[in-house]
């Protein structure tokens, strides 16, 4: 995904070597993906089919759109 979009950066994080990151995101099972946009975060648990994964990942973007008030 990072490879096809210049705005996406992907990190594969080895949870046992980075326990602080794993704790910060409450990683209790793997794989767990944390997608972060400007101000919103979406968590994806487990491995999903491609369409579903991208659907959920991109929902971080719409969630961080400024809300009209």
């Amino acid at each position, binding site marked *: *995904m*990072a*490879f*096809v*979009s*210049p*705005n*996406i*950066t*992907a*990190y*594969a*994080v*080895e*949870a*046992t*070597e*980075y326990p602080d*990151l*794993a704790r910060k*995101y409450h*990683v209790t099972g*793997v*794989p*767990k*993906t*944390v*997608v*972060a*946009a*400007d101000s919103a975060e979406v968590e994806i648990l487990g491995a999903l089919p*491609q*369409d579903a994964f*991208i659907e959920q*990942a*991109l929902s*971080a*973007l719409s969630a*961080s759109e400024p809300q009209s008030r």
Partner: protein
Amino acid sequence: MALISQADQDKLREAFNEMTSPVRLLFFTQTLGCETCPQTRQILDELPPLSDKISIEEVNLVLEGDKAKQYGIDRVPAIALVSEEKDSRIRFLGTPAGYEFISLIQAILLVGGRPPGLTQENRKRLAAVNKPLTMQVFTTPT
């Protein structure tokens, strides 16, 4: 002794044969206080002999802090994959052992020219992303 068995080396050499463009692995490390850095370096060192398209460049997090920052790396060991013309924005934090090693190989092949496994539809959706998005995939070696 080699970490990668002879049989696996042969398989990798064959897979790397498909690569059409060079891939550079930036290996971020530091001299002190990084228990798993030597092991990571050892794993990475076994790849260039399998393909003339793969090279390793060591970056010292302490001495070359600016470069590390440029690639968004603030801890070690870490690996950034870059192709000749651009940064792939694919990173590995921690030792790429076990299943992570397989992911690293897949990433090298992708950056080296293998077509992404994404559908045309999904590529379009991703190309439309116009704000920075980071994805952290947490894994364990087993």
